[in-house]
């Protein structure tokens, strides 16, 4: 299988050959940061196009079809429009917090994006506590949303932000507990170790019943965490105009929009890394020749393929189910998902202790 670390090591040696050690490190930091930001922007554009097309097909429409073949350049055109839009000055707001909020949201999502193992050897942040770090940084985004709602000096924004904050804090519990189930099984929080531990079978198959329950709970909680339908009531347009980003215009709004799509990508890629083996190809123990053939497909395709499937499921959710009311949404989390999760965690511990897994 192709290992991306050969490329990164080649770049590293090239830089070190004509730069001193510290300067080479600095240049590498900047290069990695640029690559991450470019990847972030490109993935967001692709996701926006895909969302519009998927939504159109679910509603028996054609979707974007004028700009470029099959409307593929539509989201690029939208991006240029967004970049050139005026940022409107609003009176009677706390200008510092108002301008800060979109950046807090986007920084949280870029940091989480940096933790994901994209392919073999293509992994930026690989701490010992990898998955814990990912949850930690993604929880910062809530602060940005609350600040945006408050600083806008607008009732609808404030109510939207409160709803959004309550929702995200509640569903973070479910996300944390379902990830804990995986950590109990793999015995590690390091993302690279988790992926390599799934070399002879993905966790969804090896951990059978508790892993499947944890996967379903994770997908539901992840959808709610990213404020997407059917849990998108912070943005319930008929009641709250546009929720916490009502007053934002131009690229400030663009940041919220980007972060929403990228958070969906982060949720989907964490799901595929933890439960579907990340970049690890489909291996069945004993079938040597089958495993060999699977290894010929590059790891980056495996990762993006699995993530695309999970993203499609999340989009399918959005365009199929009706929106929940706020009390129904909180009841779903606290009355159903949380107890199910705790029992599931206990079940996983029993399975690991008595070695009932594959």
């Amino acid at each position, binding site marked *: 299988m192709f290992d991306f670390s050969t490329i990164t090591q080649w770049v590293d040696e090239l830089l070190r050959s004509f730069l001193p050690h*510290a300067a080479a*490190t600095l240049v590498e930091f900047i290069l990695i940061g640029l690559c991450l930001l470019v990847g972030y922007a490109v993935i967001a554009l692709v996701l926006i196009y895909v969302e519009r097309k998927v939504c159109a097909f679910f509603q028996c429409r054609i979707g974007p079809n004028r700009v470029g073949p099959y409307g593929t350049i539509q989201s690029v055109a939208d991006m240029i429009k967004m970049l050139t839009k005026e940022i409107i000055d609003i009176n009677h707001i706390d200008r*510092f917090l108002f301008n800060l909020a979109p950046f807090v949201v986007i920084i949280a999502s870029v940091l989480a994006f940096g933790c994901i193992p994209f392919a073999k050897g293509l992994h930026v942040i690989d*701490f010992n506590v990898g998955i814990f*770090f990912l*949850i*930690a940084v993604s929880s910062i985004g809530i*602060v940005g949303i609350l600040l945006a709602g408050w*600083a806008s000096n607008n009732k609808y924004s404030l109510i939207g932000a409160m709803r959004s904050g309550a929702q995200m804090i509640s569903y973070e519990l479910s996300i944390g507990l379902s990830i804990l189930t995986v950590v109990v099984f793999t015995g*590690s929080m390091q993302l690279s170790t988790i992926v390599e531990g799934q070399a002879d079978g993905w966790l969804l198959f090896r951990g059978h019943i508790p892993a499947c329950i944890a996967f379903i709970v994770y997908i539901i909680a992840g959808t709610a965490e990213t404020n997407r339908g059917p849990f998108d009531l912070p943005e319930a347009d008929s009641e709250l105009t546009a929720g916490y980003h009502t007053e934002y215009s131009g690229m400030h709004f663009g940041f919220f929009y980007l972060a929403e799509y990228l958070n969906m990508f982060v949720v989907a890629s964490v799901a595929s890394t933890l439960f579907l083996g990340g970049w690890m190809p489909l291996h069945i123990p004993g079938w040597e020749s089958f495993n060999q053939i699977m290894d010929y497909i590059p790891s980056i395709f495996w990762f993006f393929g699995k993530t695309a499937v999970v993203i499609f499921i999340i989009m399918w959710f959005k365009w199929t189910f009706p929106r929940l009311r706020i009390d129904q949404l909180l009841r779903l989390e606290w009355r159903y998902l949380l107890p199910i999760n705790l029992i599931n965690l206990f079940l996983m511990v029993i399975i690991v202790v008595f070695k009932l897994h594959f």
Partner: protein
Amino acid sequence: MSTAELQETVFFILATVIVVCSILTVTTNRILRSATYLLFVLFATAGIYFQLEYSFLGAVQLTIYAGGIIILYVFSILLTTTDKSKVSKLKNSKVFAGLITALAGAVICVYITLMHSFGPSRFVGGEINQKVIGTALMGTEKYQYLLPFEVISVLLLTCIIGGIMIARKR
């Protein structure tokens, strides 16, 4: 510039952020701004932990303080105050008492910093394995912390029950 100098530069940037934002936290008039500056202080502290390669403590700092406590603060500010409620003028006696407390605190801090003999300025062991931290937290032997861990859990449980009792409708 060597790697050590690069590390030092990063440390000084983080230290400046901590000092400046700490001062702004207590001098600003708007309560939500001061919560935001406090958030920056906590971020920069987490940055120092990451620089020391103690990523567990850094991640805990981010989850508990930045992701938990600050959100709790912001929530309670949103639920209780309006934008008009600004800080009222302090009485002279209170200013005097505050000054004395600040001075005493500063003297104690400076005294401890000067008298304490610090260890090596950089941690050389690399990142500590998560298993080591886990067994230290949950073990019952010497230098392991199961008892404090459980005592704090009981304390938190009591707080939760107390909170429910206060908030419950009769």
